């Protein structure tokens, strides 16, 4: 789509479907990340501005550096497959004091264990969770559904066709994960588990 009229910008014009200076691209990218209600991915940004995804990725990388360099109270971070502006954790006391918010109720150990099983074994059914945990976890599953941390993932083609569960996007957000591959592998925990004697 590049036309003859392309102006030479102060900073080099980036390659893309539309001619746009890299400074402008960075600026628009920052604005879009700010207005998005949830983490926004580089493809969406690229589509809106009508430039190549690579250009947006470069812009985001530069923005991240800038945020870090100027010791801002904010950070640009990758989460749940997208980018988001958020406060830095070290300011949590002041922020909390202002918002008058208490740390939200933590999940019970039972819910966390159930969530851990679902996160690593997904899609997984209630009977399968029972087998690993050794306890029924109906209320834990209900809590996790209520908090939207897990979602139904269809039924398993087995006796009784039980519902299968998996983690949600909200799970990634609440646990600060880029994607599921960022979860430490279960084998890492093996050492902890058997470590005392082996």
């Amino acid at each position, binding site marked *: 789509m590049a036309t003859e009229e392309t102006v030479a910008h102060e900073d080099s014009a980036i390659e893309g479907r539309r001619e746009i200076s890299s400074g402008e691209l960075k600026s628009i990218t920052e604005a879009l990340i*700010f207005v998005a209600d949830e983490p926004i991915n580089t493809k969406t940004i690229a589509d809106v501005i009508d430039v190549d995804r690579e250009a947006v990725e470069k812009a985001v990388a530069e923005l991240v550096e800038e945020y870090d360099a100027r010791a801002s109270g904010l950070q640009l971070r990758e989460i749940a497959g997208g980018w988001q502006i958020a406060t830095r954790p070290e300011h*949590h006391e002041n922020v909390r004091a202002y918002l008058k918010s208490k740390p939200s109720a933590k999940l019970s150990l039972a819910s966390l264990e159930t969530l*851990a099983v679902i996160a690593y074994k997904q899609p997984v059914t209630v009977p399968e969770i029972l087998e690993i945990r050794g306890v029924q976890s109906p209320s834990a599953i209900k809590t996790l559904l209520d908090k939207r941390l897990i979602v139904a993932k269809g039924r398993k083609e087995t006796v009784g066709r039980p519902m299968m569960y998996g983690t949600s996007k909200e799970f990634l957000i609440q646990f600060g994960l880029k994607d599921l591959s960022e979860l430490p592998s279960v084998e890492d925990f093996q050492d*902890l*588990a058997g470590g005392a004697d082996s």
Partner: protein
Amino acid sequence: MEDTAQIDTIATPAAEETPATINVAGATPEIAPDRDHDQLKITLGEFEGPLDLLLYLIRQEQINIYDIPIARITNEYLRYLNLMQELDLTMAGDFLVMAAQLIELKSRMLLPRDPLAAAEEEIDPRAELVDLLLEHEKFKAAAQMLWSRATVEQAVFTRAEIETDKNNPEVAVGLFDLLRVFQEILARKKEEIMMEIEREEVTMAEMIERLRNMVRSAGELNLMRFFERASSRRELVTAFLSVLELVRMSEISLLQRETFGEIVARSAGPA
């Protein structure tokens, strides 16, 4: 054998104290209101289930998890189970199931080994339990990891809603939201039906009189408005039949000005 005798002789030192201060095997039971239900729930500290208790006992006794002395651990396990019962803590059935499994395992361990079977072919009857325990412990560690991640995340805040969001009061939905909403509607409906029973039913004659009066006083009556007054399904049927009746008797005529438009009733007889 020996176990049963031992259970009976267990001392329950904490029995007179308030349950909140009881210390069972290093874990402090908590009494907490159940968030969803209006009842108090006693949790045995970290012993969510039998596997947790078993793991605790194994660590406590400093036993090699790959070589569990089943008889000893079974005795210990039953001792704590008994203690829980003495403290009147409601115990999930899972604890009893595990007790049965342990006792069965113990008796299998007591059986003389098959002298003909080659040593390496013999499967340790404990293997399955060990796998289960290791698997379970792995996920306990994973839960700890999630806990610390969530703690860090709770220190991070995102911006408040901006104006554009407010024009857009929407809720994100999933499959179970759909079901829950549906159940709420059904529950709401059930309440309405229960109230209906109290109400007096309108007879056909009364309904015809009501329709006559409404048409007469308004000159022209939007039938939708008439039907909306019906407070039950049955009343609605009565209302509908009364319209048919008055049309049949040529007291009213029905008029629809446009396709799918409103239907109005008019007095048909001589004014």
